[in-house]
């Protein structure tokens, strides 16, 4: 909730050959909250609006200049999620992952792919 948002981190297999399918892992420390809380009305517990809603709305994956994937999320996503997906190494170019949260704030992380010979 009042947790600090850290810049996303990206991890890719070190030795990648051309046309190899490799794994990309992205960790993003971002809180996720529906905004609701259960409070006691002195008679019975009720749901109410507790704090502003906070969640990652979109994640975009770029390989080189090309947008290759979009992850669409809601407040049901976990706190500090870890995303894993696969890409095919077709070119020596950076992999960039962009996050946008529900407040319209943006974060990005990238790493260059170099082929192992």
């Amino acid at each position, binding site marked *: 909730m009042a947790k600090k948002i850290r810049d996303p981190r990206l991890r890719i297999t070190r030795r990648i050959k051309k046309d190899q399918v490799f794994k990309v892992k992205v960790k993003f420390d971002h809180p996720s909250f529906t905004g609701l809380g*259960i409070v006691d009305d002195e008679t019975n517990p009720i749901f109410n609006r507790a704090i502003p809603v906070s969640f990652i709305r979109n994640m*975009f994956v770029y390989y080189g200049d090309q*947008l290759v994937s979009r992850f*669409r999320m809601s407040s049901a996503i976990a706190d500090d999620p870890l995303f894993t997906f696969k890409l095919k190494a077709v070119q020596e170019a950076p992999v960039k992952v*962009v996050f946008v949260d529900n407040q319209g704030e943006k974060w990005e992380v990238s790493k260059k792919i170099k082929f192992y010979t």
Partner: protein
Amino acid sequence: MKKVLSFLILSFFFFYAVSNAVFAGTVEEEFKIEGLISPASPKALKSALEKKLEVKVIDLNLKSTKTGWPVLRVQFDSMVVSKENIEKVIGEIEDPAGHKFKVHHGPLLANAPILDEEQKAIAILGDTAEVFPNMKNPITDKVASVSRGEKLFVDNCAKCHGLSGNGYGTVAHGFTTWPRQLWAWNNTGPETDGYLFWFITNGRSDMPPWGLILSEYNRWDLINYIKTIKNPGE
């Protein structure tokens, strides 16, 4: 009789003057509160505020407030305590769960407007729920279409959405998301046609793309029937 009347009038003015003098600076203010997340929060907030400042908490309205945020009503002497001071102290109070309260200002921003980058990505990746085609329902004979749609619904959709459209179909229990309650579209106008057609055609999450199974004509029949489904509780 005259004496009694004059006594009453005089006593009225006396009490009026005294009460004015005593409650000259007494005011009531409302604060929208952020941070009430646990059952212990309301009590903690009220007692801590009264302990730290010379104020009286009248009530804490958790339900049925205009904005949805809980509203704390506080009575205080404006000569002794200021509104800003109360806000500051509320911001310093710690909940038993270990987080701080805050006075809420401004509207609730649940979802900021779509950024340019998001808009571009949506355009590149094609059909998504944000861009629905503007479509016109081609079927004119609605009565016959609804009865055809009902049969299609029972055969194809009721397993998940339930016969009454309540979202509790027999096979829905293993899904990652509950199927939608279909009376959300009861009596909606032509503006929802594009959305419903897109959704039925392409599917999402656990819902299959019915565009591969049902003809376009059948999908419009389904849409016509869905718009007649009423909430049984109403």
